[in-house]
């Protein structure tokens, strides 16, 4: 056990078990347990379901009549599908991100206390974040290869390879960022979408998304989308983030700016000026650890132990 300490081994096993757990859909077994314990009847008698069937038929008939009597309007699903298409276009959008902590679990999940307000630039599923804290100016992001980077001014930066990124840091990235294309895709698949009345003076559509099934490992419970009625761009988005089945944070994204940025802004090098130095696992890891400690505090050494090479 030279380079692999007991703690890191335990963390690896836990991480592996977590991944295995994520791949299990608990619903079929949960229903099977319910059936065995007699809480969910195997089959009900005709007498029991006759009345609900009649009621359901009445509801459907009423709905069909109502549908015919009101002018056709775009469904919530169609709106989200259109928004998804719009967010696939190579345009850069800046959102003001406000995070409200709802539970102590947020800090347990991530040792980094997220700043209350940040600027998030997105293009498709790529993003970078500009911290608004004037005391500690930094820009960070996760590139399309899953590498997390942070620039400390124009000449120094660190990079963390995908296999080094701890699970909590990925969760932290997911909590703070929204990755519109993937998010809208997830809403279309796993959420019940309903339209809500928009304020009379606003030119937007409001869609509420609620998870159809409360999966204990789900990261998102609900979302409220405000879509521009003309362009279908997300103008405002409120996400309820979950962990271990509990609400941990409410994150609100408000569209601040739309612009066309250079593509390299989504790469670390786009935020640096020559001469610059990027500290990585292989290049001056001891310097990288110093910056990692500035970002994550003294415990950084536990998550990014110095590599001992044979």
């Amino acid at each position, binding site marked *: 056990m030279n*380079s692999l300490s007991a703690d890191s081994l335990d963390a690896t096993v836990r991480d592996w*078990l977590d991944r295995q757990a994520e791949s299990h859909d608990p619903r079929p*077994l949960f229903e099977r347990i319910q059936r065995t314990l007699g809480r969910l009847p195997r089959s009900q008698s005709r007498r029991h379901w006759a009345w609900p069937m009649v009621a359901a038929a009445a509801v459907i008939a009423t709905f069909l009549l109502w549908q015919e009597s009101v002018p056709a309007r775009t469904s919530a699903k169609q709106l989200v599908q259109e928004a998804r298409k719009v967010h696939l276009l190579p345009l850069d959008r800046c959102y003001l991100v406000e995070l409200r902590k709802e539970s102590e679990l947020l800090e347990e999940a991530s040792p980094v206390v997220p700043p209350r307000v940040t600027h998030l630039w997105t293009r498709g599923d790529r993003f970078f974040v500009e911290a608004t804290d004037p005391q500690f100016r930094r820009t960070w992001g996760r590139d399309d290869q*899953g590498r997390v980077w942070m620039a400390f001014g124009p000449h120094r930066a660190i990079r963390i390879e995908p296999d080094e990124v701890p699970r909590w840091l990925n969760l932290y990235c997911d909590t703070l960022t929204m990755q519109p294309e993937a998010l809208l895709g997830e809403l279309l698949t796993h959420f019940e979408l309903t339209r809500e009345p928009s304020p009379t003076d606003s030119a937007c559509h409001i869609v509420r998304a609620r998870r159809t099934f409360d999966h*204990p490992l789900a990261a998102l419970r609900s979302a409220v989308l405000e879509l521009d009625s003309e362009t279908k761009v997300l103008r405002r988005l409120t996400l309820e983030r979950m962990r271990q089945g509990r609400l941990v944070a409410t994150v609100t994204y408000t569209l601040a700016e739309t612009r066309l940025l250079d593509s390299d802004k989504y790469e670390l090098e786009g935020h640096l000026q020559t001469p610059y130095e990027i500290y990585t696992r292989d290049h001056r890891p001891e310097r990288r650890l110093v910056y990692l400690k500035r970002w994550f505090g003294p415990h950084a050494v536990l998550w990014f132990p110095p590599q001992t090479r044979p």
Partner: protein
Amino acid sequence: MADESASAASAKEMDAWVLATLPRALAFATSLVDNSAVADDLVHDCYCRLLSKSEVYDLPRDGTKLLYRAITNACINYARKRRFLSLDALAEQSGTLVDRKAEDPCQIVIQREFTQDMESAMRQLTIPQRAALELKSLGHSLQEIAEALETTPTNAGVLVHRARQTLARVLQLDEEKFA
């Protein structure tokens, strides 16, 4: 009336507990018996036994400990019995259901490699070693592991230590292989 609402609340609490613990319990059992269908059955039986005694035990408080103890025993018993079964049992290997939605292919490959490395490393361990290491990584104390494995805390510590040694050795070998 009050009794009915209390029992409904208690049933809801139990359901929440089952849903919260189920994915990890399934993953734990699958890793011990190497067969998701068998793991499903064993975990199902363990939950049913525990839930049928929910009036005796304080499940939200002690349930997880009792559950892992029951699953560990059930898996070890199953493995013992399987030794006497025909080789056909080996053909029962079934893959787990993986939702790859919205994941990029690189991430899938990295995760698959990690999963394969870990699976082959875990297979090098005996079932008690595997159970001890996984329970330790899930935050159980040596005393709790000893109770689950019906052994002494000292022996549980030895099992954890040997499991870590083997795992470290196997993962190290893999690193060298890909260097």
